[in-house]
C-alpha cells in the first residue's frame, strides 16, 4: 500500500444526492479462459515488424470469430511452442534493457493458458535467430522434455532447453546447418549442401551423437523452402519449383520419400507456383495438403497467393482449387473435422476464414495486429 497510493474519494455531490436510486453496481474482474481450447482456436503471431520490441500473439476462435485474448511475447517474436498437454505455452523472447538498446536478455517465457499471463522464465543464450517466422525456428521434442531453438550470430547452433528442470541443457554447435525440426528426443536441421543433420540427445539434453544424410535435394537447382508443415513425424516441404518433398522423421534414420509436383503441364504453362510466407497446410483426418499458389516467374517465391490448391496425400492428385477472396501470404488449416482455412496477407490486419472443404469464405476477423506472418493451431 505504500507504493500504490490508493485514494478513497467519494464525490460530495453524489454522496449527498438524496434522489439517488438504489442500484447494485456491477462487479469488475479479470476474465480467464476456463474452456478447453476448441479445434478452431488459432494463434495469430504478430512479429510487429515496425514496432519490433512489442511482439504479441492473438488467440482467436476462427469458428466463431471471437477474439479470446493475447499474450505479449517480447522483441522480435517468432512463434509459440505448445507442449502436447497444453498445460503451459512457451515462447523464446528477447528483451533489451532500454527497449531498443542496452543489455540483451533472452528467455523462454512460460505462459499459463488459462490466464494468458507469464508464470515463469527460463534464461537462454542471447543468440536466437531472428527472422521472418517459420514453424522450424524452434520446437519441442516428441517426448516433451526439451525445447530446441535455432541460433545464428552468425555462428549456427541450437539451444537445448530442459523443460522439466526449466534450465538450459546444452548448446549444440551446428555449422552449415539451420533451423530445427524436433523428433522423439532429437532434432534435425537443413544444411546448406542439401543434406539433413540429425542430432540425438541424451537424457540430459546433451548431444549424444549426430549423423548427416546424403543430399536429398539440390539447393542450387531447386531449393526447398524452410516453410514445411508437419503431421506428427511426417513433414512436407515445398520447393521453389513447386515440388513437394515428404520426409518421414519418425525413426532415427530419416526417410526421404519421393518428391512430387504440385503442378501439371497446364498449370506450368499458366505460370502457377507455390509462394508466400507460410504457404503449406495439412489436414490429418482427411489426408489433404493445401498449397498457396500464385502466377509468377522466378523470384516470386514470397509473393502472395491468390488460390489455395488442395491435394489428396494418398493419391498426390489435386482435388480442389479454392479461389481466395483476397491475396494471402500465410495459410493455416485447423484440425477440426470440418477444417477451416485461415488466410492472412502480411500488413493487412484481417484474418480471413474459409471452409477448407467447400472453400467458401465464412468471415473476416478484423483489427488483428500489425504484421501477422505465422499462424498456429492451438
Amino acid at each position, binding site marked *: 500500500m505504500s507504493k*500504490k*497510493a*490508493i*485514494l*478513497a*474519494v*467519494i*464525490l460530495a*455531490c*453524489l*454522496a449527498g*444526492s438524496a*434522489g*439517488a*436510486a*438504489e*442500484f*447494485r*453496481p*456491477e*462487479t*469488475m*474482474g*479479470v*476474465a*480467464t*479462459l476456463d474452456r478447453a481450447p476448441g479445434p478452431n482456436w488459432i494463434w495469430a503471431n504478430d512479429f510487429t515488424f515496425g514496432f519490433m520490441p*512489442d511482439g*504479441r500473439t492473438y*488467440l482467436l476462435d476462427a469458428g466463431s470469430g471471437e*477474439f*479470446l*485474448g*493475447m*499474450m*505479449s511475447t517480447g522483441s522480435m517474436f517468432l512463434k509459440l511452442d505448445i507442449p502436447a498437454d497444453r498445460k503451459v505455452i512457451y515462447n523464446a523472447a528477447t528483451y533489451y534493457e532500454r527497449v531498443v538498446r542496452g543489455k540483451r536478455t533472452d528467455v523462454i517465457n512460460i*505462459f499459463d493458458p*488459462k*490466464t*494468458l*499471463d507469464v508464470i515463469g522464465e527460463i534464461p537462454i543464450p542471447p543468440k536466437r535467430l531472428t527472422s521472418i517466422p517459420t514453424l522450424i525456428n524452434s520446437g519441442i521434442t516428441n517426448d516433451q522434455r526439451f525445447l530446441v531453438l535455432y541460433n545464428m550470430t552468425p555462428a549456427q547452433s541450437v539451444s537445448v532447453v530442459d523443460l522439466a528442470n526449466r534450465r538450459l541443457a546444452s548448446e549444440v554447435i551446428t555449422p552449415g546447418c539451420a533451423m530445427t525440426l524436433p523428433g522423439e528426443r532429437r532434432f534435425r536441421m537443413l544444411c546448406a549442401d542439401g543434406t539433413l543433420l540429425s542430432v540425438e540427445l541424451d537424457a540430459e539434453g546433451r548431444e549424444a551423437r549426430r549423423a548427416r544424410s546424403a543430399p536429398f535435394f539440390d539447393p542450387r537447382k531447386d531449393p526447398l523452402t524452410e516453410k514445411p508443415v508437419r503431421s506428427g513425424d511426417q513433414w512436407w516441404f515445398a520447393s521453389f519449383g513447386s515440388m513437394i518433398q515428404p520426409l518421414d522423421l519418425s525413426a532415427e534414420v530419416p526417410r526421404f520419400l519421393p518428391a512430387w509436383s504440385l503442378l501439371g503441364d497446364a498449370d506450368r504453362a499458366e505460370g502457377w507456383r507455390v509462394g508466400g510466407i507460410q504457404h503449406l497446410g495439412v489436414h490429418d483426418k482427411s489426408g489433404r495438403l493445401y498449397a498457396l499458389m500464385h502466377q509468377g516467374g522466378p523470384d516470386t517465391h514470397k509473393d502472395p497467393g491468390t488460390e489455395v490448391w488442395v491435394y489428396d496425400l494418398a493419391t498426390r492428385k489435386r482435388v480442389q482449387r479454392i479461389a481466395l477472396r483476397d491475396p494471402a501470404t500465410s495459410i493455416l488449416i485447423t484440425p477440426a473435422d470440418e477444417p477451416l482455412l485461415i488466410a492472412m496477407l502480411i500488413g493487412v490486419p484481417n484474418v480471413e476464414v474459409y471452409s477448407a472443404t467447400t472453400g467458401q469464405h465464412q468471415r473476416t476477423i478484423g*483489427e*488483428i*495486429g*500489425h504484421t501477422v506472418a505465422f499462424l498456429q493451431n492451438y
Partner: protein
Amino acid sequence: MKTFDRWIENSARGMARRTSRRHLLTRLGGLLAGSAMALPLLPVARGEGATRVPLPLDADVEGDAGDPTKCEYWRNCAIDGYACACCGGTPTSCPPGSELSRITWIGTCRHPVDGRDYVVSYNDCCGKSPCGRCQCNRNEGDRPLYLPAKSNDINWCQGTKSNIYHCTITAVIGQAVEG
C-alpha cells in the same frame, strides 16, 4: 456531438464519424478508487441489501448502442482507448492476463432504453501490449488533465504492477441524478 472513433480504421474510410448528441452531467464523475478488498467503492448511495434497479439488457437496445464491441455502445460515451469487449474481455471484465486498475475516471451515460443516466467507471486494464481493437474516443463530460477525475486523456493504469495500457472496461456502478 461528433465523436471520432477508431482513428486508424476511420482514416481509411475517410473519417466516418458518428453522431450521438446529448448534454452532459457536469456534476458527476470523480476520482473513483477502491481498496483491493472492497471494489468498487461507490460514489453513489447504496446499501448491501438494496433493491436492485434493473439495468435494461443490452439485448433490448437497438443497433450499435447495444453492442459492446461498437464505439456507439451506450456505455462508451466517455471512453478513450480500446474497448475490452473486443479484446477478450467484456464491459465489466479485463481480458485474460491483464490487471484491472482500481484508479479510474467516471463518465455519465444516458441509457437509450430507459432514458436514465448511469455512472460508468472507465477502468483501464493494464500490463500487456495495447490491444489495438475497437479504438474509441468519445468525450461526453471529459475535462482537462488538471481535473483528473474527469479526464480520459490520462493513462489510468496507475497503482498496477505495470502502467502499460491494454484496454478499458465500462462498468455501471450507479445511477446518476441530475440536479
